């Protein structure tokens, strides 16, 4: 294994993953809120925020699907060394990483069951811009309305209609991160 793949992990995993977890949880609890996470460095083209999310949330029990340009030999080696997460296809994954275009169609991912809605995938979507402006969000964790620069299309409304089943989304751009749980309505 090339030593490049062995670099870019958290230097103090206990502290850095706790900090990152708090940021991810806040983003998930407050849809539209843009957080910052750093500390991880994965092979290109993976953003710092996506690297931190993977280091924090993925382990040997969570299958990871690398989509499109993110499925490189260097990235596979990095994931294996730093997280032990098994690399798998979209049908069996707990997490998926890629651009919006690479990840669609979303019907391929586990949506959970009525008995176990937690057995669904979380998609880490790398985006070119991330700001609290754009499509309107309402629902739990939002006072009245929030806005987030989301891709266009009916996917979020379709996903919300499946509640309590459905996918959750983390959007990453550089060190920035925002989240969209299945409970949020996108107008």
């Amino acid at each position, binding site marked *: 294994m090339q*030593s490049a793949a*062995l*670099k870019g*992990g958290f*230097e*103090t*995993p206990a502290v850095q993953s706790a900090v990152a977890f708090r940021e991810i949880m806040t983003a998930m609890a407050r849809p539209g809120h843009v957080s910052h996470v750093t500390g991880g460095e994965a092979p290109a083209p993976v953003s710092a925020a996506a690297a931190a999310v993977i280091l924090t949330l993925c382990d040997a029990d969570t299958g990871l699907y690398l989509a499109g340009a993110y499925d490189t030999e260097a990235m596979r080696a990095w994931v294996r060394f*730093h997280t032990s997460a098994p690399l798998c296809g979209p049908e069996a994954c707990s997490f998926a990483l890629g651009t919006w275009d690479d990840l669609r169609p979303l019907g391929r991912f586990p949506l959970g069951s009525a008995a176990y809605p937690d057995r669904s995938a979380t998609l880490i979507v790398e985006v070119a811009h991330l700001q609290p402006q754009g499509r309107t969000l309402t629902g739990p964790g939002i006072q009245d309305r929030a806005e987030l620069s989301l891709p266009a299309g009916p996917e979020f409304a379709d996903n919300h209609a499946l509640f309590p089943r459905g996918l959750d989304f983390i959007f990453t751009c550089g060190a920035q991160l925002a989240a969209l749980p299945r409970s949020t309505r996108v107008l």
Partner: protein
Amino acid sequence: MPDAAHIDRRGWLSLLAKAPDAEFLPLFDALGTLPDFDWLRAPEVGSVMVQGRMGATGAPFNLGEMTVTRCSLQLPGGQVGHGYVQGRSKPAAKAVALVDALMQTDAAARLRADILAPLMAGAAGRAETRARKAAATKVEFFTMARGED
């Protein structure tokens, strides 16, 4: 198992993972000055799920976990060392990773003689003693008639 002069990387990492701290760490400390290094993965204590096979040869099942400590580091020359040890000793994991990295340098011959050979002898000696004690408890049956022989 080949002797210490020929043991490969799989062999020395397996030997070091199982070596008792009380045997390995004094040998390691006796090496003297050690090179600088960078952590690729600082020592961490975790577990590995041990599997068995149903009926000894069939499909696997989960037997329970064991504690394991691991780390990875890199020498200034670029050599990467990995350390895995049974139990919860971070100093032992670091020492294994350093030995693993140094085995890829011209210090290898010295390490084979000063670390690997005594550890192999120690492991073989312990196994031999237990096997000899077990052999002494083997039953010799005395029967009235014993077939054709």
